[in-house]
């Protein structure tokens, strides 16, 4: 059991998302950095899709009410267990009464969201096949809302004996993708791509885009050279998914993120491929990003590369958790 001690603004319980309900108008939700969630779960021997806590605002503090193992992934937040510094992307062990504190994200490749995993996952009810918090519908996760000070959450398997004290090379280093020193995202041109001026299309790929303060789990608003349509486009509302890049009349694009509503009517310039959404999910407000044009085959290959990394993590962690060379915990 853990108790939230800080005013945990916008921290939510998330799994890998509520897939298969878009036809009912229910968005996917799910972890903004699905690799961090899956890796944190694997470190503890959980299913990759078990629910964890996604933390976007710091400092964040929880108290462990009983002895419990846990894993920290995502943003390196200079975590401490009482006064003891903890390594990022690592499995740890807390004793009853100890307090875990996450500070501001740090490091050269500063990320923006930390993920805390507990043995068996966070024990919240499954709704429509997922434990993710659906903020718009106010269901799923912990009481359908962001966490608050005083909330108490349970691990599904709190007593699990589990080898801890080892970690992973973070995927930002293991699967890097940068262009001119900036985080890069691969984009498939969208249905209305050719409806934009050639100069705008060129500028989209060549320019830097800043993630504005109007960015959250619903969507990221970018600022850069305005994208101009050849002629005004009026579309009926149609289905959209996380990753879709819409261009409203201002010409400043919006990328739909995990809490996106399932339909919209703005022209679609392109789609950030699924395999790169975690990179965007970790890009801090104020940071600049670049786009790389890609195609279907490359997008599928990128997804396979991501899955291969997770399969390697699962295999190596299983060896470490069972093998004789492991660190006795």
């Amino acid at each position, binding site marked *: 059991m853990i108790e939230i001690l800080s005013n945990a603004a916008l921290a939510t319980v998330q799994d890998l998302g509520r897939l298969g309900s878009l036809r009912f108008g229910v968005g996917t939700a799910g972890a903004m950095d699905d690799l961090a969630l899956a890796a944190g779960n694997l470190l503890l021997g959980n299913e990759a899709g078990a629910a964890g806590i996604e933390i976007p605002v710091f400092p964040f503090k929880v108290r462990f009410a009983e002895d419990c193992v846990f894993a920290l992934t995502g943003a390196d937040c200079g975590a401490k267990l009482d006064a003891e510094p903890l*390594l990022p992307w690592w499995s740890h062990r807390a004793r009853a009464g100890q307090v875990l504190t996450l500070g501001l994200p740090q490091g050269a490749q500063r990320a923006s969201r930390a993920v805390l995993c507990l043995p068996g996952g966070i024990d919240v009810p499954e709704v429509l096949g997922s434990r993710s918090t659906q903020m718009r519908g106010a269901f799923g996760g912990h009481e359908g809302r962001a966490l608050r000070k005083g909330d108490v959450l349970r691990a599904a398997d709190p007593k699990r004996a589990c080898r801890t004290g*080892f*970690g*992973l*090379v*973070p995927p930002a280093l293991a699967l890097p993708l940068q262009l001119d020193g900036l985080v890069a995202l691969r984009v498939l041109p969208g249905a209305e791509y050719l409806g934009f001026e050639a100069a705008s299309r060129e500028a989209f790929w060549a320019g830097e885009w800043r993630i504005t303060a109007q960015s959250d789990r619903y969507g990221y608003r970018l600022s850069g050279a305005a994208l101009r349509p050849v002629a005004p486009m009026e579309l009926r509302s149609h289905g959209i998914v996380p990753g879709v890049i819409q261009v409203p009349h201002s010409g400043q694009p919006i990328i739909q993120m995990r809490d996106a509503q399932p339909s919209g009517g703005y022209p679609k310039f392109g789609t950030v491929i699924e395999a790169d959404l975690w990179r965007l999910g970790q890009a801090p407000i104020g940071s600049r990003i670049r786009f790389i044009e890609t195609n279907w085959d490359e997008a599928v290959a990128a997804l396979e590369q991501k899955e291969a990394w997770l399969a390697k993590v699962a295999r190596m962690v299983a060896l470490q958790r069972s093998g*004789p060379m492991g660190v006795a915990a």
Partner: protein
Amino acid sequence: MMKAPHELREIAGWMAATDIGFLELRMPGATVRLGRCGDEVVTLDDGQRHDESPVAHRPGATKRSGPPLDTVTSASVGVFLHAHPCATAPFARAGARVQAGQTLGLLRIGVLLLPVATARAGTVAALRVEDGATVGYGAALVDLHPL
């Protein structure tokens, strides 16, 4: 297939030229363990099998003069890292006091990071291996002056 004696001698010769302290060869029907004994590489029987804990301590493993040093060795083949890949500050510098159980570096094995920790308190005498170097099982990683 069992290795012929001349093949084992050849492997022992390669081993003697490195800082690998222990080598285990598993073959169908047979397992051979080679270990270091002074400057010699010898075949070990099961009774002499090395401790499988990640940190095998062998006081006085170095040939320097003065009081014997504690040497922290590698538990596996891997890449020795002085700092966490997210950080720049090393875990340990020469001259630093360290406590029992303290992490002195990391061993990277594919996607995995394992701590290289000291079983005893001491003062770091030297990091024996460069940051990012590939090391073998039993390689000497850090020398400590025991307290």
